[in-house]
């Protein structure tokens, strides 16, 4: 009997990584063993020759948002600052499978961002124009062109909020999140970087405003430099230093269906009706929604969010009617006032921060690693992440990626 095509994943390599005891001292300690922490360590080693380094993970490696996201990769952001960083990430994605020698299942199947109102259309065209001038592949498609790319999408007029068109980024797509994290981890393990799991950072050692190490549930660890990559848990760490950050942690839910014959050729996102959908390699539909409104570290969200998400999904994709939800889950995303990240130096010497990625963290993974590594190695931001400093909240030079508000009058 032939195996069902696509219903399974490629095998993992025979060896991934060790689980060493932490040493007493490292040149660099990265707090947070998620995608960003691992990618940062990787580029610190590869681009800057730093290998006396540990990545400390409070639980199991890449078990936070990296294990919980919907794996969408795109770079079609509005503002130059975001476009620069995300497009840099996109270029790295395009070579990452070879570089890590790991099957990341990176699939450039394109992403459609739907427009459901006249203002959506204006905003979409504005973003497409900005993307193209920034050298990012982007097109505006009318409803008929959208239907050609994704025939199962309901583009009829009778939708409550009809699809009036969409932006299309052909190079966008998805990858297999665990494989990405494990690819970085395996490479780091080979380069002698310590990946320390079940090691919770509980505080910092400091002399005045200079950070000299971290305190952990597995002992104190001295560090030349400490880089935070803890997403939703960042403020819990910085509170230890009295360092306030403008981030709020919210639940972000996702869900997955049973394995289905291929029906969905691309990735569809709709901010207006709060749903995004792709069909993963094994055949399961992967859906995400908007964040839950309230702060939470619970890694669980409210059910009405799921119901609303599925209502939108079935309206947009009538054929999903009898698909089944197998599993729902939630991550903890750290959101900033301008929906853009914070990456750079802190008021503390030798302490670096990367957080506030909200719902956009996964797609930025290699780009974050590249730029954050540069920031740590040179003690100054890479040009691409310079705009994402903390000062912008004081000056008002925000990078507002919320997009335009609903049209008035």
């Amino acid at each position, binding site marked *: 009997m032939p195996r069902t095509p696509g219903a399974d994943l490629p095998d993992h390599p025979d060896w991934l990584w060790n689980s060493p005891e932490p040493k007493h001292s490292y040149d660099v300690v990265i707090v947070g063993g998620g995608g960003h922490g691992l990618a940062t360590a990787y580029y610190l080693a590869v681009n800057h020759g730093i290998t006396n380094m540990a990545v400390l993970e409070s639980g199991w490696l890449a078990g936070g948002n990296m294990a919980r996201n919907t794996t969408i990769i795109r770079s079609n952001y509005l503002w130059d600052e975001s476009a620069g960083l995300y497009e840099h990430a996109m270029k790295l994605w395009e070579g990452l499978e070879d570089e890590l020698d790991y099957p990341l299942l990176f699939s450039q199947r394109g992403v459609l961002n739907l427009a459901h109102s006249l203002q959506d259309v204006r905003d979409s065209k504005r973003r497409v124009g900005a993307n193209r001038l920034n050298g990012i592949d982007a097109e505006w498609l009318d409803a008929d062109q959208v239907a050609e790319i994704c025939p199962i999408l309901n583009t009829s007029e009778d939708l409550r909020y009809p699809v009036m068109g969409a932006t299309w980024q052909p190079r966008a797509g998805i990858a297999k999140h665990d494989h990405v994290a494990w690819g970085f981890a395996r490479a780091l393990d080979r380069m002698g970087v310590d990946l320390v799991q079940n090691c919770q950072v509980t505080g910092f050692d400091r002399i005045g405003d200079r950070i000299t190490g971290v305190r952990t549930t597995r002992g104190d660890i001295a560090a030349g430099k400490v880089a935070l990559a803890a997403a939703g*848990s960042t*403020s*819990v760490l910085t*509170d230890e230093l009295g360092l*306030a*950050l*403008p*981030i*709020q*942690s919210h639940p972000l839910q996702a869900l997955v269906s049973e394995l289905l014959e291929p029906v969905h050729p691309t990735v569809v996102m709709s901010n207006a009706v709060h749903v995004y959908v792709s069909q993963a390699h094994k055949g399961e539909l992967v859906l995400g929604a908007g964040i839950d*409104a*309230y*702060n*939470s*570290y*619970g890694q669980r969200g*409210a*059910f*009405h969010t799921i119901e609303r998400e599925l209502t939108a999904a079935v309206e947009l994709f009538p054929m999903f009617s009898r698909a089944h939800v197998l599993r729902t889950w939630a991550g903890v995303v*750290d959101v900033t*006032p301008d929906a853009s990240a914070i990456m750079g130096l802190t008021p503390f010497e030798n302490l670096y921060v990367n957080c506030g990625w909200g719902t956009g963290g996964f797609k930025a993974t290699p780009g974050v690693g590249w730029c954050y590594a540069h920031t740590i190695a040179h003690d100054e931001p890479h040009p691409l992440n310079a705009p994402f400093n903390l000062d912008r*909240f*004081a*000056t*008002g030079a925000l990078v507002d990626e919320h997009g335009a508000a609903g049209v008035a009058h």
Partner: protein
Amino acid sequence: MMLIPCPWCGPRNETEFHYGGQADVPYPAEPQELSDVEWARFLFYRANPKGLFSERWNHQAGCRRWFTVRRDTTTNEIFQDDSHEAVTR
């Protein structure tokens, strides 16, 4: 679906409320006297604790009153403030 205790209407489903974030962040008395950094604190910086959090909710679909509760951000257990007095931001 949390049950949020409106001090007036009693416990109602989370969907009837609008979230207001951290409580007790008063509007500065003399905004014009503040430095940009101090002003940014008021505009953008809010506590983000893991555990008990004093936060504001508005009973949007009900009596439209704003009120404060203390909620554990890891379990969503809510401990209501008794006072019916107007809350502060």
